[in-house]
């Protein structure tokens, strides 16, 4: 199977990217504040803030709540900056895909240059403020995360390899490490483990979605795994990645970082993830029910793991820090 299915308009990023759009005299902007909020991908931002909060809360030592708040604010703004840069560069393919066609740049409500300036400004502020008010390690990690998402994933990997979301998933996995670094000024095995959980969670999550939108991705010329390697290979990869993910999910308990309640939650939800991944493996198009179920449950799975960790490890610690 060719990299891009027949009929797909796969232009290289340098010709399709907004940077080389024909110069034209722009109308005075009609963009509302809501359009700029949409550029920051608020739903992605909320997940980033949540996982960063867990990293921050489970970290050892004491932290002033105001410093914790500042760290989360900077991480949220940094995630928003990465989202805006992604929407700037991907405006051409966003316009083709049904799921993204109503975003502010393809709709023409925000000019590509405005999205770029907005993203760069937010990124600059988030990194500098985090470095000045919290610590330099957390700021460096945030800068690397924004760079990884905007440049490595969006500009390079997304349009060039079916492994795009496997490698690019690292960008979404960094927030707990940034949270931990903000609290302690250092890194250890625990935040790396949290990173690994999100890193191996990302492929089954996005490939389950991609299975239900293969035509959309093919039309936009994005070489997602189902477009390039086909349905069967994607289902096999989902199962393999879930088989790695489930033990990783249990690992915080097995290594003594988390308690029994976390271990039980990780085991039960991990078993459900595996069962759903097995159903996806057995299912064949045009039926997509199992893929939709796996996509929906994967969100709950990650949320539950981190929420239980927050309650078990972080909440007590957070209250103790507030009292200190």
């Amino acid at each position: 199977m060719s990299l891009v299915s027949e009929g797909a308009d796969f232009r290289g990023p340098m010709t399709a990217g907004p940077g080389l759009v024909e110069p034209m005299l722009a109308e005075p902007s009609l963009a509302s504040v809501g359009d700029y909020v949409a550029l920051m991908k608020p739903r992605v931002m909320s997940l980033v803030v949540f996982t960063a909060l867990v990293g921050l809360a489970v970290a050892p030592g004491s932290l002033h709540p105001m410093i914790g708040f500042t760290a989360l604010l900077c991480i949220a703004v940094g995630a928003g900056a990465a989202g805006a840069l992604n929407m700037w560069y991907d405006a051409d393919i966003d316009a083709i895909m049904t799921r993204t066609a109503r975003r502010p740049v393809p709709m023409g409500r925000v000019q590509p240059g405005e999205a770029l300036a907005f993203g760069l400004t937010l990124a600059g502020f988030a990194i500098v403020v985090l470095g000045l008010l919290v610590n330099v390690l957390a700021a460096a990690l945030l800068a690397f995360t924004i760079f990884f998402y905007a440049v490595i994933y969006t500009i390079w990997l997304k349009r060039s390899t079916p492994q795009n979301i496997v490698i690019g998933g690292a960008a979404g996995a960094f927030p707990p490490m940034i949270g931990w670094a903000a609290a302690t000024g250092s890194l250890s095995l625990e935040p790396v483990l949290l990173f690994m959980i999100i890193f191996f969670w990302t492929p089954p999550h996005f490939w389950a979605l991609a299975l239900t939108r293969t035509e959309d991705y093919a039309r936009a010329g994005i070489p997602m795994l189902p477009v390039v390697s086909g349905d069967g290979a994607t289902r096999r990869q989902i199962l393999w990645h879930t088989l790695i993910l489930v033990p990783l999910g249990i690992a915080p308990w097995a290594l003594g970082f988390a308690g029994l309640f976390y271990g039980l939650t990780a085991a039960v939800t991990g078993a459900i993830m595996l069962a759903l991944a097995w159903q996806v493996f057995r299912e064949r198009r045009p039926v997509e029910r199992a893929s939709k179920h796996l996509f929906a449950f994967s969100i709950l799975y990650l949320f539950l793991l981190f929420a239980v960790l927050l309650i078990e490890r972080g909440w007590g610690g957070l209250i103790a820090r507030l009292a200190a």
Partner: protein
Amino acid sequence: MTIGIAMNEQPKDEGVVLTEAQKRARRSRSIAIALSLAALVILFYVMTLVKGPMVLVRPL
């Protein structure tokens, strides 16, 4: 003299004239920027109070 009158009769260039919707959008954006800057000032002020002299210490 004739030339002078002709020059005076040229239509005045008013530049880009914003519609009411564009003016409203610009105003809402301006308010959002002002609020963000105010929040940043408050954040630095409060953090300086919280950290005290340590606000200048940033170990690598």
